[in-house]
């Protein structure tokens, strides 16, 4: 975010499609209880590939939620995004927002890939039957920008739209972009990310990542911050938020779930995990600065948790670098070890978990991680009750982007200390 605008950005709606729950309530219950759902990949045509374990979204029926005209022209990743957007808008009480003022609602999504499954099907027609058998929707469905377009068309939204393509951390950058859009005067932005990387072509694209876990056993595949860390496992799904001007939200008596307080992003190069220490620390400092937040005010950290030893070490050290002694005391969690990393969707799911953790006063645990070998207070096994007013969400991408986002639960009751540090006004 640029210099603080006088308009503050509130989160007023949440929609989730995740491996551990296809609605927000189920997702939070699963996260709070540390449910572990990583499993062998069952998608058709994937059995021979040396990527065995992932977080699949199961039991999701898009036809029950989305019109067929939208389904036939979109890939699974857009189905997740449209479903999550619909749920978020409904929760915010804005399902008919376009009817009154279509230009007051914008859409921003982030994407690490695009419609791989749809694209593969059409490319098989191209080389199997000929160019005349490629359907016209191939022109839009594979595109990483498809979800922003389809959400805006489906909702009739004509406000500022965008797509953030900045690696996995783009999920956080998209939220920041949405907050900037609100700061510039747009009332409401639908923002988030969802991905569908479990199809043969998409999986082959991922096989070149040295960080990818090719473990056979789901219980051993993704164990960040432990001596057994052997990479990350991918996941499907993601989350979409409705964000809006805080005053507007309060004016219409919408529930303000949290406020987007600060964000910063850096870039340190692909797979240069030692360098991500400095990049992540710099992003954390930037996000705290923008939020007017002292390190000690951070009540919980949602870690990136790459699951690669050098990356885990860099993240633990970055927390110490940026937060000082508080970095080893603040509760840290990584709910994604239970569901995998849905690329750009992963940090948005963490934002949802952070908002709900603050609402419920519970730091959710890091599933299936026990023997932590870094100097951080990683919450394991069961949720830890705590008064949570400020959360820090971290994300890194395989191509080298690092991002940090600060969320506040109840800015209306900020302590005097906060006000001294804030750059507002």
């Amino acid at each position, binding site marked *: 975010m640029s210099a603080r605008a006088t308009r503050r950005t509130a989160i007023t709606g949440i929609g989730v499609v995740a491996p551990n729950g296809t609605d927000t309530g189920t997702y939070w219950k699963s996260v709070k209880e540390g449910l572990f759902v990583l499993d062998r990949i069952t998608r058709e045509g994937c059995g021979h590939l040396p990527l065995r374990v992932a977080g699949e979204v199961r039991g999701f029926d898009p036809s029950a939620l989305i019109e067929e005209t939208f389904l036939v022209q979109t890939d699974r990743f857009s189905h997740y995004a449209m479903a999550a957007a619909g749920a978020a808008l409904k929760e915010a009480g804005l399902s008919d927002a376009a009817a009154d003022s279509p230009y007051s609602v914008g859409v921003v999504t982030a994407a690490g890939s695009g419609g791989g499954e749809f694209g593969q099907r059409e490319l098989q027609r191209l080389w199997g039957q000929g160019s*005349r058998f490629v359907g016209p929707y191939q022109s839009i469905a594979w595109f990483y920008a498809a979800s922003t377009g389809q959400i805006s068309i489906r909702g009739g939204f004509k406000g500022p739209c965008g797509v953030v393509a900045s690696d996995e951390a783009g999920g956080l950058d998209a939220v920041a972009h949405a907050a900037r859009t609100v700061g510039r005067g747009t009332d409401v932005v639908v923002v988030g990310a969802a991905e569908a990387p479990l199809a043969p072509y998409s999986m082959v694209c991922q096989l070149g990542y040295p960080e990818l876990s090719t473990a056979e056993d789901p219980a051993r595949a993704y164990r960040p911050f432990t001596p057994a860390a052997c990479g990350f496992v991918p996941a499907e799904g993601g989350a979409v938020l409705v964000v809006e001007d805080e005053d507007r939200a309060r004016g219409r008596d919408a529930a303000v779930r949290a406020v987007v307080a600060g964000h910063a992003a850096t870039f340190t190069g692909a797979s240069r995990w030692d360098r991500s220490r400095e990049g992540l620390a710099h992003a954390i400092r930037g996000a705290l600065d923008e939020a007017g937040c002292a390190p000690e005010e951070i009540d919980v950290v949602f870690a990136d948790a790459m699951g690669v030893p050098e990356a885990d070490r860099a993240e633990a050290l970055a927390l110490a670098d940026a937060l000082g002694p508080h970095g080893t005391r603040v509760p840290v969690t990584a709910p994604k070890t239970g569901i995998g990393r849905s690329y750009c969707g992963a940090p948005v799911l963490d934002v949802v978990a952070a908002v709900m953790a603050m609402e419920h006063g519970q730091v959710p645990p890091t599933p299936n991680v026990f023997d932590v070998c870094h100097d951080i207070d990683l919450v394991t096994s069961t949720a830890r009750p705590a008064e949570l007013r400020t959360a820090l969400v971290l994300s890194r991408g395989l191509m080298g982007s690092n991002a940090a986002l600060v969320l506040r639960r109840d800015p209306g009751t900020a302590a005097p200390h906060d006000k001294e540090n804030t750059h507002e006004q």
Partner: protein
Amino acid sequence: MSSEVTLEELAALMKKAAGVTVDPQDLAARADTPFAEFGLDSLGLLGIVGELENGHGRALPTDAERCRTPRDFLDLVNSTLTAGA
């Protein structure tokens, strides 16, 4: 394959190519209503043209994908298909 494309076939193609559900009788009654009002966009019509070209093994005029109504479309398609029969 019969070379005349019927309203029933067009309704089935609208469903298959674009996910648009329309009753053939409704399509017949509203044959001069723009495709857009049935929920069919330009890419959807392009997909229908492709299906017909592949099914009949011959090219249709480029104007086919620009037809605005079911009647215009079927008139053009059928005059092309029967002309060459």
